[in-house]
């Protein structure tokens, strides 16, 4: 690899994320709200904007998942 190539920034293709898609879920038993990235942008740090719960779990994406039978 030449020096010019090393200096030029490498562009990484990032997947397009739908910021309104419900990707997380608050595990607070009284809340259980599903949250999008936009919902999380409205609060400081990572916590549920509805109940303040600090433990969120990631939900299964809507895309079909292909798994090999190994």
């Amino acid at each position, binding site marked *: 690899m030449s020096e010019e190539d090393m200096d030029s920034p490498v562009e990484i293709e990032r997947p397009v994320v739908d910021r309104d898609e419900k990707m997380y879920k608050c595990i607070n038993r009284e809340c259980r709200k599903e949250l999008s990235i936009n919902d999380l942008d409205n609060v400081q740090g990572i916590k549920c904007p509805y109940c303040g719960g600090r433990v969120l779990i990631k939900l*299964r994406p809507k895309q*079909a*998942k*292909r*798994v*090999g*039978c*190994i």
Partner: protein
Amino acid sequence: MRIEFIPVDKDDTLMFIVEGIDATFANSLRRAIMTEVPVYACNEVVFYTNSSPLYDEVISHRIGLVPLTTPEGTDKDSKMVTMSLEAQGPTTVYSGSLVSDDPSVQPVNDEFPLLKLGPGQSISLNAECYVGYGKDHVKWQPGLVGYKNYPIIDVDKQRCNLCGECVKTCPTKILGIEEGSIVVLEIFKCTFCKSCEDACKRLNENEIITVRPMNDKFIFRIESFGNMSTKDLLNTALNVIEKKAERLDQLLNE
């Protein structure tokens, strides 16, 4: 070569005696049946939802190991078959819940448990089934095959005192005393353990009974997993060996 079939009670088992072959050919036949017969098995699973406690990978692995019926004449170029599964908890999902788009390709038994779903849990998937060979993955293995040499059990009737020690010692109980001599009742069950020889030597200090294998006669046992009948399995494997031999002959002539 002479083949003699042995009657067996089970439908999925075939036993036969082959005479006039050597161990090399017997082993090539065993390997051909286990690794060269094309059968259907699930190769990939597309998951749409899975809220069960099991990971997608675990479920796909289990579905992959479900043996599927394979119609006659199937080869590597046969079309892909899709099976779909949709279930809502609480329930236990069995292989019978897999709905195939080709009625000739189905799970061989509807009662293989795949997973348990609790209340509110669900699963939805499509399983893609392809034709493959046992040499690539055990899910494409159509059955089990074993062979052993045909035993020869010789009894020196003149020196035998009919003490009955060999009859008592034999773990598979294949020996008996009939009309004043030792007789072999079920020779197929002999495992060459030579317990009878040892017991006889202990008491008589002579080799009155001897057990030895025949080198050109073999007892085969084929157990099918249900993908196809045992006779189809044997025929397909013999065709494979024949084609390979023809191909080798053709290459040598070129």
